[in-house]
């Protein structure tokens, strides 16, 4: 085991996959000479040269579509979006081209590409730079949506995403890049579509992903101080969703909280709740409660911003409510 930051784990995955397969190239704004806006691509230009690590103009629609076209004829592009906020400029190519190519060509043409970059809010970046878009992309058949919460998952899932034959929306946590953790050495992949129980417990299940995983683990620590045993299920992949792991956990605890950074309306948590009520309704001892970001554009003011965010205290409160303790 190595101790790496989430950023360096992603960097290792890119490096190893580019060494392994010369069809893989990285393209995006500031990925080469600047070493990456968030330094995920540090050193890659030096190792692989400008043919495979390509700085682009600020033209998200153009270079994302270029990636789709290159993938259609056999390359394996990794397209970096500086943040998912900017990928709104590219969403036509992600949704109308990448996601649908295999289907509308009757299975003749696939799009093996990864579109990756940071998602979610950082600190005081205000409304246009503080958004969590996973529900948007998870809505689209033809896309896979992957959201690692730890350095080990970041590396293993990015390797799987690059090897996948379908377009993968790979969402990194903007506030997770400095997170340190143990990462297995060598060519270890984490499968797409497999959730992970990050902490076992018996009284309540907390389903979470990306940034809310660390918050759920903190919440579980606090609940433990009150003799409440919480199980933390990290989805890791939003689409396809690993419902088996969710059902196994909720069937054991009979109570569930779903925490996500995004907005409440038609969010990822709404889908989790739908799966639970349709499949294991009789296992529930209480309605499932969702903890989400506030249903507003993100304010700049620090106090208002804190109020808008998910935090461990809000997850603790929700857990107590499903246990009828509050």
């Amino acid at each position, binding site marked *: 085991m190595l101790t790496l930051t989430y950023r360096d784990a992603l960097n290792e995955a890119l490096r190893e996959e580019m060494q392994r397969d010369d069809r893989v190239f990285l393209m995006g704004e500031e990925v080469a000479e600047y070493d990456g806006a968030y330094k995920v691509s540090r050193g890659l230009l030096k190792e692989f040269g400008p043919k495979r690590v390509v700085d682009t103009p600020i033209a998200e629609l153009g270079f994302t579509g270029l990636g789709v076209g290159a993938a259609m*004829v056999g390359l394996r592009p990794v397209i970096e979006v500086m943040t998912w906020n900017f990928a709104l400029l590219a969403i036509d*190519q992600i949704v109308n081209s990448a996601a649908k190519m295999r*289907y509308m060509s009757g*299975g003749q043409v696939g799009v093996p590409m990864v579109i990756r970059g940071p998602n979610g809010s950082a600190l005081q970046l205000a409304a246009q730079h503080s958004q969590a878009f996973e529900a948007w992309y998870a809505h689209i058949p033809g896309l896979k949506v992957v959201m690692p919460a730890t350095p080990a998952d970041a590396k293993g899932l990015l390797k799987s995403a690059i090897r996948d034959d379908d377009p993968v929306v790979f969402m990194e946590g903007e506030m997770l890049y400095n997170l340190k953790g143990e990462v297995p050495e060598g060519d270890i992949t984490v499968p797409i579509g497999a959730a992970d129980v990050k902490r076992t417990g018996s009284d309540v299940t907390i389903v979470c992903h990306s940034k809310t995983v660390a918050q759920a683990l903190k919440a579980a620590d606090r609940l433990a101080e009150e003799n409440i045993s919480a199980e933390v299920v990290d989805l890791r992949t939003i689409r396809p969703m690993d419902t088996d792991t969710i059902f196994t956990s909720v069937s054991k605890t009979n109570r569930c909280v779903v925490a996500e950074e995004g907005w409440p309306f038609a969010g990822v948590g709404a889908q989790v709740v739908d799966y639970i009520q349709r499949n294991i309704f009789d296992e529930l001892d209480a309605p499932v409660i969702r903890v989400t970001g506030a249903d507003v554009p993100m304010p700049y003011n620090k106090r208002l911003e804190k109020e808008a965010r998910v935090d461990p205290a809000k997850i603790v409160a929700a857990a107590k409510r499903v246990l009828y303790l509050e």
Partner: protein
Amino acid sequence: MSGSTASKKKGSKRPAKATPAATEEQCRNWYHQLCLLRRFEEKAAEAYSLGKIGGFCHLYIGQEAVGVGVMASLREDDYIVGSYREHGLALARGVPPRSIMAELYGKADGCSGGKGGSMHLFDADRNFLGGHGIVGGQIPLGTGMAFAAKYHGTDQVSVSFFGEAAANIGSFHESLNMAALWKLPAVYILENNGYGMGTAIARATASMDLFHRAYSYDMEAEAVDGQDVFAVKDAMERAVERARTKSEPTLLEMRTYRYVGHSMSDAAHGTYRTKDEVEEYRKRDPLVIMAAFMKKQGMTDDDGLKAIDDEVKTEVQDAMDYADQSPDPPLEALYTDVYAEGG
């Protein structure tokens, strides 16, 4: 929009007059293709009015010389993407009329298995990589295929077809900039048929010489008489040569005209142009121009031309019969081809 033929690079002007130098066999083949594209679309319109083709259906009638002249200049391993007005492009590329008509019918034997329809014709074996339904969406895709050709070190060329209205969308400009910046082997075929749906070019575009836009990106460009197969092929051969040997892109503005409506829901001349205007353009019909050339050269006479047209009519009727008899895709097909493995 048939008009002047001009070429320019950084202020220099070079006339690009068509210089027909073709064998009788080539001319007969091109006339056959022009007829095929025309009669196929007429048959598609008939099938549409009978309710056999659904959804949107955009015909290529009037623009045939562009498809035929461009495809005549390409190799089998070159890449092609088009917009939703791509039936004629697929035919000119050699996709069998049967599999195109069956696709328009949504049948299992269609070139996209009945899942694509009129706007999404694909034939991967011929590197015909889609009709694409969002205006301008295919331009970055074609650019990516040129990027891949250069990345692999092959001398393949990637050709992107789009209408003049797409020259006002961001993906056009973003693509041309990247293709010129990175010297990609791409040819951009701007089919200027004068109208974006019902909006005349002059009502949507400040500068009427669309090929000038390439100069903003330091890219070679020409305006071409898109009604004349020879003019199209001439200009295309220069562009292909530039892409294949120097890995440099070109924008070709093909000045053409569509006689029919934007789609089947739009009457032939609609509310936005006069019948007289349409009739005026019919005087420069690509089939008439090619027929006149062949007769003048003594390659054929009216009977010979009619024999070609009759042959095509049989071929197109056969395509319709084939599509009529082809089965619908099985219901299980609904959930296949979403992902590489399984549903």
